[in-house]
Structures are given as C-alpha cells and as structure tokens.
C-alpha cells in the first residue's frame, strides 16, 4: 500500500508537482497547527529517550538528595504541622515536592542549554523557518520540554514510592487552600472563600490511594511551564554556550536553595528574616508549594496565581526576545551568527 503511494508521489513529482492554493491554505489551518505541535512535542520526547545518560542523571540527582541528604537530615530538621500536612511527616516526605520541582528546574535549564546550542550551531533555524507563528513554535517547544519533565517526575515518584515516600490517600479534592497568605489579606480571603474552602468534590474510593499522583499533574505542568518559559527567555539572552556555567551558579542554585524546597519558610524566618523575604519573592517557592499541595489533592491559590502570572510574564519576554524584528536576537546578529 505504501509503495503505491510512493509511486504516485514520484510521478507527480516528475510531472512538476505543485501544491494547489487550497491545499497550501489548508496546511496552515487547525490540522496543520495540530500536526506541527505533535511533531515538536514528539521530537522532544524522542530525543530524550535517545539520550539515556540524560534520563539517568535526571533521575539520580533527586534520588541522591532523597536517599542521602534527606536521610541524614531527618533527625536534625523536624518539620512541624503546616498545611497541607495534618500530621508530622518525615523529612523525606517534606522535600519530595521540592525535588520534583528541582527536576523541572534542571530540565528547563537543560532545554535552555540545548536551545543556546541549537542557536549556535544553526539547528534552531530549521524550527524558525516553519510557516507557523514563532510564538506558537516556542510554546510547542516549551510544552515538549514539560512533557519530558513530566516523564522524569513520574520516574522519580515511582522510585520514591518503592522507598515508601508517597502521598497519603485522598478522599476529597480542595480547590481553594491558602498557604501563608499576607496577613492583611488573610481575613478577606477567609471570608470570601468560606463556602468553597470545603471540599468541592470527593474522590471515588478506588482512586483514593493514588489520587495524589493524578492531582499533582496540573501542578507539575504549570510549574514546568513557568520554569520552562523562564529558561526560554534566558536562552535568548545568553550569548554563548560557555556562559552557561554561570546559569548554574546564578540561577539554579540560588533558586533552589532560597526557596521552600528544602525547609519550611517559617524555619527560615526564625533563622533570618531577610532570607525569608527573599524566599517569598522567589517564584520557585510557589512552584514547589503548588506541587506540594497538588500531591495532597489541594490547590494553593496564592501559588497558583503567582505561578500563572510569572509564566505569562516570562513567556511574553521570551516571545519578544525571539521576535525577528524587535527581539534581542535580531539586534545581535541572529541565531547561528552572521556572516
């Protein structure tokens, strides 16, 4: 069957095939967009699956933190009962969401790195000469990266599950919970949401034991989008691959350590109020909290708002930077350099 199609195709080529105006227009329609989106996401996943070392290192990194760091600090760092936790939890359980966010962060920076590389080698051009709008291409690439991050996060959660670190059974999903709201807003928020703070719907019994693994999906996707769009913007600002070591020092480490990933914010406040304020300004903190609450079937509204807001800002900056007429790339001489 395929052979026949090929023969017909060759004949049409031999006769000087031209796509009709109608077909050309259709190709830029909804189905074309869908095909393009699927193609980009699929390529990201394929590439990832072909790079086994990358998969392993992405998995080993958080596991080292979980098995060595967390085990060592279990005795030193007690975690008190703060939302969403209703009982004392092991330190391992506390840092698990932070480690998932770390996976997203590293993954985002990795794809940013590969975009800088693609730009330097010229591979990026094959993406950018696609007839679809550049913002759509970048968004698709971003979602491709998030899909990969989601796979990684699940691989991590699976290993952690065997270790006994798993979200508790969830009986109901809460759509509005508030983690450490500003004091002035606390009362207002409480009054406004009083009728809906209570569970909006309950979870069927057979799903309850692993419901946390499902309710965390939107949180991972949103957090991944935020970190991915930050990385995308950074990839347009970073001029050369060599500068990337700096990204480790100036972005990944500060973002990860000055957040609620490793210790609850109230502990940081006790130790250093200025650091506490810094952690509260760090968008990564809210990515971590969104995931933490997500694992418990809850939505932390403040984190949600901040994560979505930051995504919009970072993405807009990235699209601007890649814009052919106004962007930073145009000013500097373009992807792949100039000659």
């Amino acid at each position, binding site marked *: 069957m395929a052979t026949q199609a090929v023969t017909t195709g060759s004949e049409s*080529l031999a006769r000087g095939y031209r796509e009709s105006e109608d077909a050309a227009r259709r190709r*830029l329609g909804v189905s074309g967009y869908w*095909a393009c989106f699927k193609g980009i996401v699929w390529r990201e996943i394929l590439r990832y699956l072909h*790079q086994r070392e990358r998969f392993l290192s992405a998995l080993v990194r958080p596991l080292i933190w979980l098995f060595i760091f967390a085990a060592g600090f279990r005795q030193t760092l007690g975690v008190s009962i703060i939302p969403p936790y209703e009982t004392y939890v092991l330190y391992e359980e506390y840092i698990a969401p932070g480690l998932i966010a770390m996976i997203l962060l590293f993954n985002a920076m990795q794809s940013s790195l590969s975009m800088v590389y693609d730009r330097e080698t010229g591979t990026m051009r094959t993406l950018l*000469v696609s007839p*679809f709008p550049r913002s759509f291409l970048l968004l698709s690439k971003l979602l491709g990266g998030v899909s990969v991050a989601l796979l990684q996060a699940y691989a991590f959660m699976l290993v952690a599950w065997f270790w006994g670190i798993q979200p508790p059974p969830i009986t109901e999903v809460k759509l509005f919970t508030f983690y450490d709201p500003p004091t002035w807003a606390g009362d207002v928020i409480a009054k406004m949401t009083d009728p809906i703070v209570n569970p909006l719907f309950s979870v069927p019994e057979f799903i309850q034991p692993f419901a946390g693994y499902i309710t965390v999906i939107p949180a991972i996707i949103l957090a991944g989008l935020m970190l991915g769009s930050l990385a995308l913007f950074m990839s347009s600002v970073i001029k050369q691959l060599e500068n990337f070591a700096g990204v480790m020092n100036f972005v990944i480490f500060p973002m990860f350590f000055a957040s609620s990933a490793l210790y609850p914010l109230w502990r940081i406040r006790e130790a250093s109020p200025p650091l506490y304020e810094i952690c509260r300004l760090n968008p990564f903190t809210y990515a971590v909290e969104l995931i933490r609450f997500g694992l418990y079937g809850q939505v932390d509204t403040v984190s949600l708002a901040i994560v979505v807001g930051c995504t919009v800002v970072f993405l807009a900056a990235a699209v601007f930077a890649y814009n052919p007429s106004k962007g930073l790339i145009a000013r500097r001489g*373009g992807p792949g350099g*100039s000659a």
Partner: protein
Amino acid sequence: MASKAPTDAEGTPALVVSGVSHSFGDRKVLDRVSLTVSQGAFVVLLGLNGAGKSTLFSLITRLYDNVSGEISIRGFDVRRRPSQALQRLGVVFQSRTLDIDLTLMQNLKYHAALHGFSGRTATDLARQALELVGLAERADEKVRALSGGQLRRVEIARSMMHHPDLLLLDEATVGLDLGSRESVMKIVRDLVARDRLGVLWATHLMDEVLPTDQVVILHKGVVLYNGPVPQLLTLTGTSSVREAFRSVTGTKSAIEEAA
C-alpha cells in the same frame, strides 16, 4: 481556484529581493541588494566569505526582519505574510542541521510536521524525498551513520519534501569531496528542470557555475553583477567565471585562497 493557480504560478517569480539593506550596529553588511529568481531558474549567488550571503539568507528566511527594502516569495511579502511566504520556501543551511540521534525518517517527519503534515502524508512525502536523493533504503538508520555527502542529500530531501517554490542553498557543497559535490549539484539541477523550482545557490566555488546559469556577484554587501554567464564573460572580456569574478570584484589573492 485550482485553475487559476497555474496562471499565477507562471508569472510570479519564486523570489524577489528589492533594495534590501541591513546593518549590525554600525556595520553595514548589505547595501541595497536586489535580485530576482524566476521559476525554473538556477541562480548562483557568488561571493567570498563575509560578502553578506548568509545575512541575505537570514533575511529571506525571516530569522530577522528586513528593515529596508522588500522581499517576497511567490508574491508573498516575508514580513507582512510570513506564513504564506515561508510555506513556499525550502532551505539548506550552511551548517548541518539534522538531528544525528534520530533516524532519517524521524528527521524528515519532524520537518513535515513543522510544515503542517502528519501521519500517512508525512511518511509518504518523506519516502518520496528520500527516494529522490537515493537514500530510501536507509530511511530507518540513524543520521549519525551517514557520510558528509549523504547528510547533504538528506538535507536537500528535507528542504524540498513539502514541495516549495523556492529553494535556498547556502554553501551546500562545502566540505564535500568531488563525487558528492557532483551528485548534490545534479540532484538540485534535476529538481529545477523537473519541478520548475526557483533555486538560489550561494557559493564561493566558481566551478559550480554552468554557462546557462544566472549569476549574482555579491561583494562586501553590494551586488556588482546580476545577469547570465555569457554576458558576464563578454562584459569583462574574460574566458572563465573565476577570472570574471576577479575582474569584477578586484580581488586577486582572496579568491585564490577561498577557492
């Protein structure tokens, strides 16, 4: 609609560049460049390294916008109607841009997706294109396993698989041995004859020019000659394109080094 298209098709050139200038900061890399590639024409863009060829290509492919002048592909302005323009364009960039970890088929299907094709159509287009460059039987091998010349052929297959009207090739034969160079040239020239594609072939290798080609000499961002080869030879009173190029650009030693 379908009956109207061919009449349009005959008249509208594959590429029109008119009065395009471009600078990076204070450095002017292109100065009022104009050229036309008709359908079925093989136009050689001759220039030394740094002449502005790649910048011109970047403007045509809209990696960045042309600030002055106009560029249109089959009548579609690349700035005002980028989607329609880019849809009709195929490019082989100077640097290698295939994903070496993926197979030939996966690379081509990815490209098909970028142009809005999926499923069976994408697979068929990829097969046809690979057949055309004689690599159909290696479709499921990884790109890593290919030689330099084969890589280029895959890139050409990729650039024409979506049936563009205009093909841009930027130093497509650089780094290839004589045999590979000839086979790459032949594939592209056959395409021009068969599909009436317009081709803009950027090179600094004078021996790639045939007497029937149209030549555009770009030097330091300025077009110094634009016309058929025989006329170039008559004008300069020379017997080869190489000598003619030297005479037009006044570069003696440079071209020797480059070639």
